[in-house]
């Protein structure tokens, strides 16, 4: 990544206009404000159905096109090739949610990554289908209560772990893969600016908490996002084209996962033993990441 830069030091005008129709405290709106200022005006961006298209698209005055839910990767590929063959050089950016990335869009994204199409894919991950009322997606973490995995008498929420999409994409031999969080804008900006200098398929997966779907006070979005990183649940890292893995943030000590999750009503049903399980899994994964930090991944 490039050097982390504070938002106020990013050159150029803000793209996003004042006011948008997202929910109060929406992480995606924060992400859009940061990302589009960094990307600048020479950008074509695209949407697939979801919160971003519905609530933010009207507030992002840029060259834009939307397509079918499954079509994110193909649309970007077509635009990128169509512009280049006509001698136009613009940033071609997909700004999609987790559904359009890790589920219905995964096939098209994988193919675009494998072809190393020249584009930037930003996944705004709020960990469920929030636009349709909070159904689970492949990005929903284990135990989260969603409208299709409700935690009730016979159910403990989602049964399986969150899909590790950044690693899936890294296995496609692309020039850049990174995770980021809206609570760490300087890190995010450094990653966006670095991605913009590269040719080929760039992927930035940003965790973006959803007050409505996760169940927390809209004033706490940044706080919740930060806790997810500080507890090690959402580590910030990047994988270069040569497969070098780097942890971008290494707290001396991780905060307990309970501190992060207990603020979210989607986890309010968790028992002590379930918290322990999540704590152990998180600690184990964190240890694995520390072990590969600075090394070349065998993928």
């Amino acid at each position, binding site marked *: 990544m490039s050097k982390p830069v504070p938002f106020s030091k990013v050159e150029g005008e803000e793209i996003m206009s004042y006011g948008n129709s997202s929910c109060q405290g929406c992480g995606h709106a924060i992400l859009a404000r940061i990302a589009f200022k960094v990307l600048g005006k020479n950008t074509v961006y695209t949407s697939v159905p979801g919160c971003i298209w519905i609530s933010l698209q009207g507030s992002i*005055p840029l060259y834009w096109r939307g*397509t*079918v839910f499954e079509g994110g990767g193909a649309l970007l590929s*077509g*635009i990128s090739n169509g512009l280049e*063959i006509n001698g*136009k050089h613009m940033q071609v950016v997909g700004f999609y949610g987790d559904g359009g990335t890790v589920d219905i869009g995964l*096939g098209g994204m994988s193919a675009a990554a494998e072809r190393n*199409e020249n584009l930037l894919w930003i996944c705004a991950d709020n960990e469920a289908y929030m636009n349709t009322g909070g159904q689970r997606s492949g990005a929903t973490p284990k135990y989260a209560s969603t409208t299709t995995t409700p935690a009730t008498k016979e159910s403990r929420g989602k049964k399986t772990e969150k899909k590790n999409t950044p690693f899936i994409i890294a296995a496609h031999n692309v020039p850049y893969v990174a995770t980021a969080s809206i609570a760490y804008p300087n890190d995010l900006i450094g990653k966006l600016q670095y991605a913009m200098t590269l040719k080929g398929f760039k992927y930035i997966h940003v965790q973006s908490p959803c007050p409505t779907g996760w169940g927390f006070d809209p004033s706490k979005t940044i706080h919740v996002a930060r806790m997810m990183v500080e507890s090690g649940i959402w580590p910030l890292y990047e994988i270069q084209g040569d497969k070098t893995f780097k942890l971008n943030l290494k707290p001396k000590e991780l905060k307990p996962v309970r501190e992060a999750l207990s603020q979210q009503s989607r986890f309010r049903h968790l028992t002590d033993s379930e918290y322990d399980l999540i704590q152990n899994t998180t600690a184990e994964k964190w240890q694995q990441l520390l072990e590969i930090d600075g090394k070349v991944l065998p993928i």
Partner: protein
Amino acid sequence: MVGNKAVAYGVKLARVQVISAYPITPQTTIVQYLAEFIANGELEARFIEVEAEISAMVAVQGASFAGARTFTATSGPGLLYMHHPMMEGNQLPIVMSVVHRSNKSMQPDHTDTMAQNATGWMQLYCENNQEALDTTIMSYKIAEDPRLYTPCMFGIDGYILSYTAEPVEIPDQSLVDEWLPPFKPKWAPDPNIPVSEWKKMQGGYYGGQKAWITHDEHFKKSLEIIKEVHADFEKNFGRSYGNGIVEEYNCEGAEAVIVAMGTIASTARATIDDMRSEGKSVGLVKLKIYRPFPMDEMRRLAGKYKSIGIIDRNVCLGAGGNVFNETRSAVYDLDEKPRILGFHTGMAGDEVTPRMIQKIAEKTLKAVKQRVEPTVEWV
């Protein structure tokens, strides 16, 4: 050359810039030929080798939006898989070749394209390989007409044309270049145009019933534009296909006509010639278009002939033949109506012989004088 090669040459002559397709029999060799043209430097284009037909359709939509001339091709099941994105991008002048393939065999019938009858795509049908090449070139001129900007697909019958060699004349590149200038749409993103101005140039139909009305009215305009482009093609290239949407063949003084599409029209020509020489009063109407449906042309024919036998190489399960149904609907308000009979034949690529065409024509002729039963039959 084989039909798939004729299409590929048409695409090359049109100087297509972005191609995207997914392999499917019997389409695949079209894009293989194109990949070869690109690989050996004969065609300057990008080929996006996608993982599925949905992506092929969305990729060419993206490229067309970005200002490139585009092409894709598919067959039967692949076309069905494209259905979702085909409902979008209604103002992008994409050209697609469909090498017809049934869903009950790998051989052709027209159920694949006709299942896309409400997607807002023009649909043209080809009888031979020369027509396939010429229709490829014409499709770009039609789709990219600034009064229209609408996607266009054209069909060739799988195997019967796709893998069968016929003599085909390839027009000079210079002639095609002059007739089909480079594609320069106003909607392509351009850093020199402020976004606020650029947004005003975007087409598409969205929002309430009004959007459907506008779209439907716009789409129907294409019939006249197709005829116009076809007439201009004839003037410049010296070949014609009726008036571009229908062709009346050996119909002078005939009381009855049979209607055929695609390669069945070719078989029917010989049969009709034989029957006319025997003094039988039956001609052939070749239908080159299915979408938009040529309602006025069908009414005109209905006013001219006493009996019309419609050959449908398709079936709308539970509701009969598509062309039969739509023709009957078109003529319903006429005070004097001809008898209209329906025939399903050649389904799933079953062979359609001159004898079968003769049987259809004889029955249609009989209906000039009297009611015949059944109105619809499988031949």
